[in-house]
């Protein structure tokens, strides 16, 4: 779990590496990037930054309120680049890094095209429909790209669509669409994505084994169920009272999965923080919050729980290296 860099820095802090020779040790261990690593990094940086800036430039261009351009010219400006980028993908293939970056660019441009459709024809569609349609349109490209970053972008679009759906309609039908329902839907979406992703990654699909992406999805899922647990405990408006039971289930499942099966201390740390927040909120609800003793007790409890959690997590990290 711990990186070679982390171990070398620890050894330096403990005085095991002679003063002034840490860089030499990092070099000898191959931790610092050499010429090839730098080349790969710059290659990727120039490619992906170029693609993102170009995509953002196109989106900004189409968002500009053009009066001098006719409808067909605008659509040509949106569609021709997509076709050109798809031609690049066809030429390079989706397995090449540049091909994946081109599909990312095509996905960004598709959003700009959909926004243009809404702007031109005044379809009356709500913003959430734009994001939902965007996610639906690019799904085939996301499927063929086999690229974790594009899947994360796709999931982000779905999350935004769900949030905007409740933001747009919540005030209209407040009785039916409460923030709790939005949280349930976000929780279901991200948890389903997490389970599917982890399951497929465990079967050995290499490109799915990007821990940063899985950690993002796990954080979204854990954040939603923690919020639902708090919603239930604080009894804001009328809750379904499923928040706390499902939170317990999520914590137990995360503990089992990330302690015994997949071993990811990041998710365990997020779980510890969730336990601290939910437990403290539950106890605070039962205590008089103007009472000095209660406040001191809760302060010490948070300190004790976090220290114990930190100690346990460090032991887990140490076990990984044992």
């Amino acid at each position: 779990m711990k990186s070679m860099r982390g171990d070398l820095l620890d050894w330096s802090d403990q005085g095991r590496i002679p003063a002034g020779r840490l860089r030499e040790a990092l070099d000898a261990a191959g931790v610092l990037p050499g010429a090839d690593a730098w080349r790969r990094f710059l290659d990727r940086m120039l490619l992906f930054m170029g693609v993102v800036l170009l995509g953002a430039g196109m989106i900004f261009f189409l968002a500009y309120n053009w009066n001098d351009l006719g409808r067909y010219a605008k659509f040509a400006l949106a569609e021709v680049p997509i076709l050109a980028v798809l031609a690049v993908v066809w030429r390079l293939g989706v397995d090449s890094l540049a091909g994946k970056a081109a599909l990312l660019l095509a996905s960004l441009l598709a959003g700009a095209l959909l926004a243009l459709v809404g702007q031109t024809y005044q379809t009356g569609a709500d913003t959430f429909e734009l994001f939902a349609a965007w996610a639906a349109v690019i799904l085939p490209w996301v499927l063929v790209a086999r690229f974790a970053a594009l899947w994360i972008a796709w999931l982000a679009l779905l999350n935004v669509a769900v949030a905007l759906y409740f933001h747009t309609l919540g005030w209209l039908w407040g009785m039916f669409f409460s923030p709790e329902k939005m949280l349930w839907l976000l929780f279901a979406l991200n948890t389903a994505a997490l389970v599917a992703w982890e399951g497929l990654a465990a079967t050995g699909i290499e490109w799915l084994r990007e821990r940063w992406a899985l950690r993002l999805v796990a954080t979204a899922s854990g954040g939603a169920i923690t919020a639902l647990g708090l919603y239930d405990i604080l009894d804001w408006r009328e809750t379904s009272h499923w928040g706390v039971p499902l939170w317990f289930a999520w914590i137990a499942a995360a503990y089992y999965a990330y302690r015994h099966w997949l071993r990811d201390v990041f998710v365990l740390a997020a779980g510890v923080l969730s336990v601290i927040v939910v437990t403290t909120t539950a106890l605070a609800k039962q205590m008089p919050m103007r009472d000095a003793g209660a406040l001191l007790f809760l302060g010490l409890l948070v300190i004790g729980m976090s220290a114990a959690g930190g100690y346990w997590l460090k032991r887990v990290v140490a076990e990984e290296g044992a």
Partner: protein
Amino acid sequence: MSATARDALWAKLRGQGLVEGELPAPGETRAPWFVRLMLGIAGWIGAFFLLGFVGAAFAFVLQSSAASFVAGACACAAAVVIFRAAPRNDFIAQFGLAVSLAGQVLLVMAVGKWFSGPSVVVGVALYIALQQALLFVLAPNYLHRVWAAWSGALAAAYALVDMGLYAFVPALMTAAFVGVALREFDLARYGAIARAGVYGLALAAMQAAVMHGGLSGVLIGLRGDHGLSLGEAGIWLGRLASLAVLLWAVVELLRREGLALSSGQGRVGLAGALILGAASIKAPGVAPTVAILIVGYANTDRALTGLDSFALLGYLSHYYYSLQTTLLEKSALLAAAGVALLAARLAMRSWWPAPKGGETGHA
């Protein structure tokens, strides 16, 4: 790293005289960044309850600025003693963190009441910067030092904004980060202190870069009609300063790697820095985030490079809503920068060809 790989690395380094003594047990090592993040957030929650306790049990402390100051100073001093007395005890360290955070809030509340008039923002901000610098030096706890460096640098940024030097904030924060980060491994026994400073300064620099533009109204709103007024020239100079910081970072890295500016690698680095630095003249968050990205990579700091990638995306999202430039100008700038970067990538392939058989998965 597995135990076998750890043993092998130790043996290799010992063979080269780069390590001394026995291989430390894995349990002696420090926590990863996300465990520290969890501890930091929990430390703040604990601090709020402790503050509530002080307010409920000793109401006069919150009502009197002098009492607040004395109580805050005592809490911070107690935290310093706690950190020094038991540096390896997790519970004590977490307790010290919460006590210190509560003390810092009390100190700032007290000092906030002492300033009035147009100097209130700059006065309080400079006081916070000084207070956090002092705590950074005195309190020997990594997490506390990251917090002290971050909050102290942000306070200094607020003071600069209030003094009318708003346009220079991203460049100055990034320069401070680059200056410390590039020497992070050369500071021997001060290395751990420098690393905490690097994270604190990086967080402040990212924040300054992402908030530069429309969101900076939050900062500028604090300003009265005092401070320097450099007008349009000041804004241009600030953005040129960001470009200069990015170029400086690239030149320093090339020097560190022993590469000439005229080498293939040097030309690629300088071309990329010039393109992105030029884009920063109109999109001022780009150069600082790119400087953090490359320095983070040079130091093999994956947490920093990952966080900074999100900061860059965050800046672009914020830039869309920035009202200082029209969407048309922004689109031309971003598209031109994007095309220039892709062209630089093609140029890199001739200036700095890949080793034979050394690359897969590329166009």
